């Protein structure tokens, strides 16, 4: 390090300020640096969480400021867990979650594998492919309703162009049998690049020496793929699945713009259902209990999953 640069920098610091901070120990600085973050997160996350837990035991409703708030114990929880409609939204969420992850993993991995062949312009095309995931899901989701319109929508037209089906004969977001797939398609379109990028990092982390050794042993490419590539990428892939899982469990903006939960309640994912309870019916206490149940579910599932992930990494 050049001494002169440091001396110059030291000289440039106003003496008053320097004196004031010089007196601080590392420990004090550590706390000064961390405190605002912790404080803000406490104020915006933990305090509300505690408030939500409290509310979840009451029948409080935001739109009834004058009504008496009663303590109802575990009744909200009991009602939610025995409500068939809520189990239905859980099923819709599970369908959405499982299929988006399956498709995104398959397509994402395949793309990463192809890009890793390092053809000319691979960096440019990777950037192009990544674009959808960076865009606003609400704005894009809204526009997809236009693409999905029977007859005039691009999607129906493209499908009819390739399959010969009449473009006005089906409505992706209007039919019970198609709507769950309509949201899977858009989510896959948006988020496959995410899985792809992570897989690509995984593929690039494999040292070439391993393949070289395998080739010396005359292992077939097929065998190399299954014994080297897949196991080495697996931790990365599992991480991608974790992120997509949490994100899609929380899914709201994209689907609310696409289908609004319809037709009927076919695509009413838990977040959309929760929004109805909390901000349309204004059953605040009930919705709070609902929110806590969801939070515990995500947290529990994610913790179990992270344990599994760590095991895979250790191997």
């Amino acid at each position, binding site marked *: 390090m050049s001494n002169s640069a440091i001396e110059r920098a030291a000289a440039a610091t106003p003496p008053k300020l320097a004196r004031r901070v010089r007196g601080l120990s590392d420990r004090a600085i550590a706390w000064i640096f961390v405190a605002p973050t912790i404080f803000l997160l406490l104020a915006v996350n933990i305090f509300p969480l505690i408030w939500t837990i409290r509310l979840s035991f009451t029948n409080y409703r935001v739109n009834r400021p004058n009504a008496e708030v009663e303590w109802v114990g575990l009744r909200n929880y009991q009602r939610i867990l025995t409500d068939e409609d809520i189990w239905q939204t859980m099923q819709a969420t599970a369908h959405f979650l499982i299929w988006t992850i399956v498709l995104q993993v398959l397509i994402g991995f395949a793309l990463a594998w192809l890009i890793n062949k390092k053809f000319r312009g*691979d960096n440019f095309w990777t950037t192009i492919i990544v674009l959808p995931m960076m865009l606003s899901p609400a704005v894009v989701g809204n526009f997809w309703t236009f693409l999905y319109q029977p007859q005039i929508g691009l999607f129906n037209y493209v499908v009819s162009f390739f399959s010969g089906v009449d473009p006005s004969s089906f409505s992706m977001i209007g039919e019970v049998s198609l709507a769950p797939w309509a949201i899977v398609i858009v989510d896959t379109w948006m988020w496959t690049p995410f899985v792809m990028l992570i897989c690509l990092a995984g593929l690039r982390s494999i040292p070439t020496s391993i393949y070289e050794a395998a080739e010396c042993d005359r292992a077939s490419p097929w065998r190399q793929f299954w014994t080297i590539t897949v196991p080495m990428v697996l931790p990365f892939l599992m991480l991608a699945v974790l992120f997509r899982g949490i994100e899609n*469990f929380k899914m709201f903006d994209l689907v609310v*713009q696409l289908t609004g939960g319809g037709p009927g309640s076919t695509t009413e994912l838990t977040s959309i259902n929760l929004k109805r309870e909390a901000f349309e019916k204004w059953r605040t206490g009930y919705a709070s209990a609902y929110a806590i149940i969801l939070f515990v579910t995500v947290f529990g599932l994610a913790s179990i999953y992270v344990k599994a992930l760590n095991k895979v990494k250790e191997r």
Partner: protein
Amino acid sequence: MSDFSVIAASRTQKWVAGTLVVGYAVITLLPLLWIIATGFKSPSDAIAYPPKIFFEPTLEGYVNLFTTRTRQTAEFLAANPPQTWYEEIVRKYDMVIAGPSRFGGRFMNSVIIGFVSTFLSVFLGTLAAYAFSRFRIPLKDDLMFFILSTRMMPPIAVAIPIFLMFRALGLSDTHAGMIMLYTAVNLSLAVWLLKGFIDEIPREYEEAALIDGYTRFQAFYKVVLPQAATGIASTAIFCLIFAWNEYAFAVLLTSGTAQTAPPFIPTIIGVGGQDWPAVAAGATIFLLPVVVFTILLRKHLLRGITFGAVRK
């Protein structure tokens, strides 16, 4: 090496891989190109069957996006000939421009809330990340995990108590409220990303500075900060993109004064139904900055989307 080498692909393999990837890229780009194209269509071209790939471009969508229009009587129209090119476009429908639309304001809200919250979260995040990276802090791992776990809550669940809190504090539909909320939400990302970046800066630099008589604070902002500049910049862009795209909080906690563009754009309607060219025009203007940022971010993209868990 043989043709089947996994390490270095053959020409044919490269060619096939390239074609498949480019094919996918083109398909994936179609919806975005369609948004841009629709922005330049007239309303009747936009809903034509079959969809029109070639059309006569017009700025109607953009005019409709930025103005409100009212219908007028034939006498009024005859007495007041159009003065500008955009007046002329509107006249085709026997309408006159009554004033600016709310899009400009909503777009500015996005800009203000996005930039201020990004600045705050990166500022606070850098301090916290430095402390987490360099000092011994009790329960460090737990604190870091706590910071991350705040992102697991569904936004709707968080919004319930926040709604009550904002109402009690008079923060509903205010810039200050939204900035505070987005700052808090982005902080976890900022801390995790920046800790990764700062971890990579060798401690020796600071130690040398400390030996030379620097205070800890001077070492931080004269030595560490410049080294972390790229990391801070890319973190900032990630925070900005999040704030820019956020919808759930915006739709539940703002109604007008502080409403950002994402909840607004889907509600742009013309006479009768949704005015798709205007919606597409709004979407184009709104999405374009993110496209630019994404291209700038290329190198750090992976890190950003995985909270620093995967580094290239």
